[in-house]
Each structure stands twice: as C-alpha cells, then as structure tokens.
C-alpha cells in the first residue's frame, strides 16, 4: 500500500484456507472443463468415427445418358451428398464377379442382370436424415429403386444414441462435480473474506470499497483459475491430437478440444466470481447484531 498498492489490494489476513481454496478453484474448473470437453466434443467425435454410408439409386433402362448426367448433377447439389458416382451395368457386373460365390451364379445366368445406378455417399453429418435422402432419390425421374443399408444404419444410429446419452450423463455429472468443487473453493474464500469485510465495515468502509476488495479476493482468483484451466485443457487437447500415445495403448482418439469451451469456462469463471463477490458483500451488509 505504502509502495503504491491500492488498499483493497493488500492481503491483510493470512489464510491457508484461502490459498487452498484457490487450488480447489483450479481443480473445479479443470473438472468442469473436462466435462465440457465431453459434452461439446462428442458430436464431432461421433461424426468423425462414422463409416461411409452409401445409398444406391437404380436407373431404369429407358433413361438416356443426358438424363443420368442431369441427375448426377442434381444429386451433387443436395446437402446430404458428400460423393456421387455413376456406375454402369458393366461396372456393376465387373465388381460382382470379383466375389467367388457370385461369379459362379453370374456365369450360370449368362447375360448381365445388373442395372445402372447412381451411388451416393452420405455426408457423416447427414446420416440421421437418410430417409429424407432416400425419398428425394426415389422422386427423381427414371429412378426405379433405392437401396439403403437399413440394418447397418439402424445399428449405427442406435449405438451412437447410447454413446451420446452416456456421454451426456458423464458430462452433466462432471459439470456438477466441477461446480461443486468451485463452490467449495468460493465458500472457503467467502467465509474468510466475510470476517475481513466485517472489520472494514466497522471502520466505515463503503459498499464500493468492500466490493473492490471482494472482487480482488473472490472474483479474480475464480476468473484466473478458469483461464489457467482453459489453457491447460487446450494444451492437453494439442498433446493428445499430435501424440501417438493413445494409439500405442490401443485407445481410440479422443474428441478434439472444443475451442468454444474456452469462452464458456471464462464466462463460468466470471459469473461464479461476480456472484460470490456480490454475495459476500451482501452478507456483510445484512449483518447486524450477533
């Protein structure tokens, strides 16, 4: 203070509890951030692990090549389409005879039984909308049938739903656990600060002076701890992304660190810190008597 520090910035009360509380805040925000990682990273992670899903639209014999080209061009403009390829009857036949079991059958059949088709690979993000894609393809002139890998899609969607709901449960529990730890840390700081500010109030300090102190002692550590936690999680995300450690241990790649979680952590830190600061000052203001 005499060296130029503002009076509200000095730390007059030695408090091991306050120091321990700052560590608690850091741990709490790390848990909260890890839960955010699961919550926000899960959708992208699931999409990235989806196998390619292909719909096949069979084209009638009367359709002329120009119409097929128009159809391919139209499919390419659809949001569900990631890749489209025209497959002639000969190509389809050539693919089929690569299979030993099918070859015997096809040779016995004699002529080429395959129809021309348009193979559409669905974008990973559009797999849930495969029915819409199927209906759209069916409506195209000249399309006689659409083959959908129904059983595989059903298994995929059900499996993902299970993973998603489990991930969501883990994320919510993690966020609650993190917030509880943060709350514990802020309560420790608040309890010691309340005594300190009661002394300030006895000396005649105004609300602004007490608020400045409360922001310094409560809000600042909460915000700094959330920033440090976000930086640690960012670095952890980078390390996991570029290290082969997970693959060496046969662990599938974890979701990428969602960068918007940085802002959420910061926002949570600011909100928790401000609320705690205001709460402590109000606790002092309403204290009258023993």
């Amino acid at each position, binding site marked *: *203070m*005499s060296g130029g520090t*503002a*009076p509200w910035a*000095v*730390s*007059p*009360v*030695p408090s091991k509890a306050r120091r321990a509380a700052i560590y608690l805040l850091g741990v709490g925000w790390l848990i909260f951030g890890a839960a955010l990682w699961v919550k926000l990273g899960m959708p992208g992670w699931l999409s990235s692990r989806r196998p390619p899903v292909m719909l096949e639209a069979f084209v009638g014999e009367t359709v002329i090549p120009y119409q097929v080209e128009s159809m391919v061009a139209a499919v390419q403009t659809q949001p569900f389409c990631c890749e489209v390829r025209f497959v002639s009857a000969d190509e389809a036949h050539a693919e089929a005879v690569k299979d030993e079991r099918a070859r015997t059958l096809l040779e016995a059949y004699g002529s080429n039984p395959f129809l021309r088709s348009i193979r559409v690979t669905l974008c990973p993000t559009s797999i849930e909308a495969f029915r819409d894609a199927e209906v759209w393809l069916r409506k195209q002139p000249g399309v006689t049938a659409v083959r959908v890998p129904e059983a595989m899609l059903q298994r995929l969607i059900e499996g993902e739903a299970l993973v998603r709901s489990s991930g969501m449960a883990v994320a919510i529990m993690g966020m609650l656990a993190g917030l509880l730890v943060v709350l514990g840390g802020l309560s420790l700081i608040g309890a010691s600060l309340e*005594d*300190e500010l*009661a*002394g*300030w*109030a*006895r*000396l*005649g*300090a*105004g*609300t602004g*002076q007490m608020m400045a102190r409360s922001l310094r002692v409560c809000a600042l550590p909460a915000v700094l701890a959330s920033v440090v936690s976000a930086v640690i999680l960012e670095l952890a995300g980078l390390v996991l992304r570029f290290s082969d450690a997970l693959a060496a241990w046969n662990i599938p790649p974890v979701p990428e660190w969602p960068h918007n979680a940085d802002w959420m952590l910061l926002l949570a830190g600011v909100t928790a810190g401000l609320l705690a600061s205001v709460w402590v000052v109000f606790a002092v*203001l309403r204290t*009258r*008597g*023993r």
Partner: protein
Amino acid sequence: MLQYLHVGKKAGEKWLFADFNCEIRGGEVAWLEGGPGAGKSVLVDMAIGMDVPTTGAVFVDSASISKSGFAALQRIRRGISLVRDDDRFDVISTVEWMELGLWCGGKNREQTRAFAREAVSRAGLRDLSDVPFCDLSGGQRAALTLSRSLARKPHLVLIDWPGIFDLNFPPQLIVDFRQFITEGGAVLMTGKPGGQLSDVHARAVSLEPKGESA
C-alpha cells in the same frame, strides 16, 4: 452526540440489561461500569451498529443507528473510532494497517498516505513502520490503535480496551487525546481512565439497575 434510550438486550431467554438510558455529549468522557458479562461491549457495539438492541434505540447525532440504512450507517461510522484489541488485519505492516484504517474511514489515498506515517510516528513507532502488525507487543498495538482512532478525526471515540491508559504511551499521543476532548470530542470507554489519563474528569455510567452515578 451518543444517546441510549430505554435500551435492553436479551441473550437467549436472559436479559443482559434492560431500560438502559444514557447520553454522552461532546467534550465528555464517560466510562461504563459493570461486571464481566454485564453487556459493556454489547453497548459499545450498538453504538456502531454491530449489534442491535432488543428494546429501545441508540442515537448518534440524533440519527437512530438501528434504523439507518447501510450507506447512512457507514457515514455515521466514519465519525466514530472504535479502540478494541480485536483487529484481525495483522500480517500487513504497521503503516499499511494504519493506511487501511484511514482509507476505510473515508480518507482518499493521498490523505491516507500523508496521515498514516504521521500517525505511526505519534504512536512512537516510526522505526517499526514496516514491521508486521502482528509482531507488535500489546502496548504497541494499543498505542497504534489509539493513534489511528484520533487520525480518523472522529467526533466520538469508543474505547473497549480496559486498562489501556495504564500503559505507557508517548506523551504526544496523550496530548492529542486530551486535545480531542477539549475540542468537543466525546469518549465512551469500558473501564476507568487511569494511568496517564487519571486527571481527566470522567463520569461513570453503570450498567446496574440504578443507572448513572456521579
């Protein structure tokens, strides 16, 4: 200056005291008499709004303490200095402790800096300015607390530190204290003004049922 009107305080089912009446005017020194647990410190706390009476009211400069909002109460508190050995801001240096007390009392930062070192000097502790407050002896803390209470320029000083004037204070501090009284300041203390202040005329205010005595 300070008035207790029909003040009573109940602790649980038991009355600490009831119907306590007393008025202390500017330039007066009064000491509260009463045995241990009689409620002397409670009455001192009531004067700065840290405790509320169960019955009656406490007035400082005609303003009811218990009915004042926080902002009004803080304005009143800035005109009052409490001298009590319970300050917990103890790891900061002596001069920082002094600055904090003055700053909370409404002095701006420039005034705070100017007055703090002067107040520490008047307590005779200039050489200990940078020593942590907690490392000072009881007598040194008493001198500092009294010096700070005067540096805040109050009009009412509440002293809840029995036997404080039996300590050997620097003469300048006693001169300052006498000057505060002669300039119209009021003092309420628990315990008699003995030692260096034994010649000061003070009236006793008893917490016994008989009320004030000469």
